[in-house]
């Protein structure tokens, strides 16, 4: 398997608190990997530290065997929806065009071809009719799909998604899963911070169990076991969720 992202002894500290403790794991291409763990387990922090959004206390993250700076064109990111101000005066299409910033640079004007590619990305998340809306006029699920369309516009090989299914409607959930599976089938690596344990074996190929330190990583069939989950959640696991 080709490794898209390798966490190597990665640690993050907030003051005296260790949020992520020496995590070492490989994320392969051509698979959907769920990052699973209780609240405060450092799931989002692990992604953000790899991406340089929060600083690392130790270790590193290698993208396609090299530094993020060297591999940036292959790496797409979808942050949590709650991380931005949706009252910002910007239209859906302009958010998607942000995903093409590396092509556009500072001065190149946006051409018709750029716009039509952005529209293709919106079509993949079923938002064609919303291109000219202000982002605040969308529902939560639609906003989530705008962020996914922006990540698609990056034409990456590794997609890192922070809680893509948090608080979305059923239609959005189905649309997002469809897009992520098609990315996986095209050979990309998809990594999502995920909360709903019941859907892990249905949607994902691999799972990374995290509770500050790495509990286990591997194919869902081998790793996603009641014992490992109990270890991850420290006995606080609601029975309903593994049923």
């Amino acid at each position, binding site marked *: 398997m080709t490794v898209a992202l390798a966490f190597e002894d990665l640690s993050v500290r907030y003051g005296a608190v260790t949020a992520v403790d020496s995590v070492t794991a490989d994320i392969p291409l051509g698979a959907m990997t769920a990052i699973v763990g209780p609240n405060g387990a450092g799931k989002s922090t692990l992604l953000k530290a790899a*991406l340089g*959004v929060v600083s690392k206390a130790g270790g590193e993250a290698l993208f396609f065997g090299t530094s993020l700076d060297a591999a940036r064109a292959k790496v797409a*990111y979808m942050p949590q929806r709650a*991380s931005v101000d949706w009252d910002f005066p*910007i*239209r859906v299409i*302009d958010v998607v065009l*942000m995903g093409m910033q*590396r092509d556009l640079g500072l001065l190149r004007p946006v051409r018709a071809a750029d716009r039509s590619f952005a529209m293709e990305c919106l079509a993949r998340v079923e938002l064609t009719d919303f291109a000219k809306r202000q982002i605040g006029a969308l529902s939560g699920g639609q906003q989530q799909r705008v962020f996914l369309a922006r990540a698609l516009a990056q034409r990456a090989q590794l997609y890192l998604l922070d809680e893509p299914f948090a608080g979305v409607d059923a239609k959005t959930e189905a649309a997002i899963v469809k897009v992520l599976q098609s990315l996986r089938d095209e050979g990309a690596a998809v990594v999502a911070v995920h909360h709903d344990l019941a859907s892990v074996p249905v949607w994902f190929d691999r799972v990374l169990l995290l509770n500050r330190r790495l509990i286990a990583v591997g194919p869902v069939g081998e790793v996603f076991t009641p014992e490992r989950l109990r270890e991850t959640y420290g006995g606080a696991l609601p029975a309903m969720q593994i049923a």
Partner: protein
Amino acid sequence: MIQSFLLQSGYNATLVTLGAMALGLATGAVGAFLFLRKRSLVPDAMAHATLPGVGLAFLIMVAFGGEGRFLPGLLLGAGVSSLLGLWVLQGLVRGTRLPEDAAIGIVLSTFYGAGIVLLTFIQGLGAGRQAGLEGFLLGSTAGMLREDVYLIAGGGVLVLVALFVLRRVLIMVAFDPSYATVMGVRPAWVDAALMALVLAVVLLGIRVVGAILVVALLITPAVAARMWTDRVGVMVLIAAGIGGAAGYGGAALSAAVSGLPTGAVIVALVFLAFAISAVIAPKRGLIGRLRRAA
């Protein structure tokens, strides 16, 4: 009065009016980006922090036998002192976990107090030609030299060019700084560039609008423009337009009516634009909201 609006009250008055317009355009545009980045109060501290620098630069220039009113020299002093204020502000926020608004309050009042002490001292000194220094408080176009206007207008144009070049990264960092980081755009650098542009318009503006009021010329056009549109680009253009029109109108008015402080007139016009927008803007204005509620 009509003559000054039609730019027919003499070459110098015309030049000053156009200079104030360029200043308003640049300040309104920078202010729109600053508003979107949610840093609207920072320039208030930066502007008040210019005053000790103005006083010190005056004293130094007089001590070296100069006139003390050389605008580039005064602005250099203002810039150094404003950067010192910004540095203290960031030190307070990072070092003491003080919230930014409290740190702004401390920096603003301390530097302003020091500035007033210095300017009062200078007035009592009677050295050099200190007439016009009080213009740095409330703004004045009286006694401005032609070179001063060229400096202000030229600086305003440069600021607009820089904004055009940086517009995409400014918008990206304002909307989603984490995403910008992942895209290889460094928010710290973009913020530093934005603060440099803010410092530039504050320095260009303190002579015309005054240190106390220049923040109004940065923020009010942006707030008014936000009422009219849901698109960043359009918002920046409207904010620049409001700033430019207010600069033009304010300078023309204060040229026509003696004794009117230029800065206060410009700010009053900017507020007028905001008040009108708040009532009649279709989407976010009062009437629009009442109509939708009905």
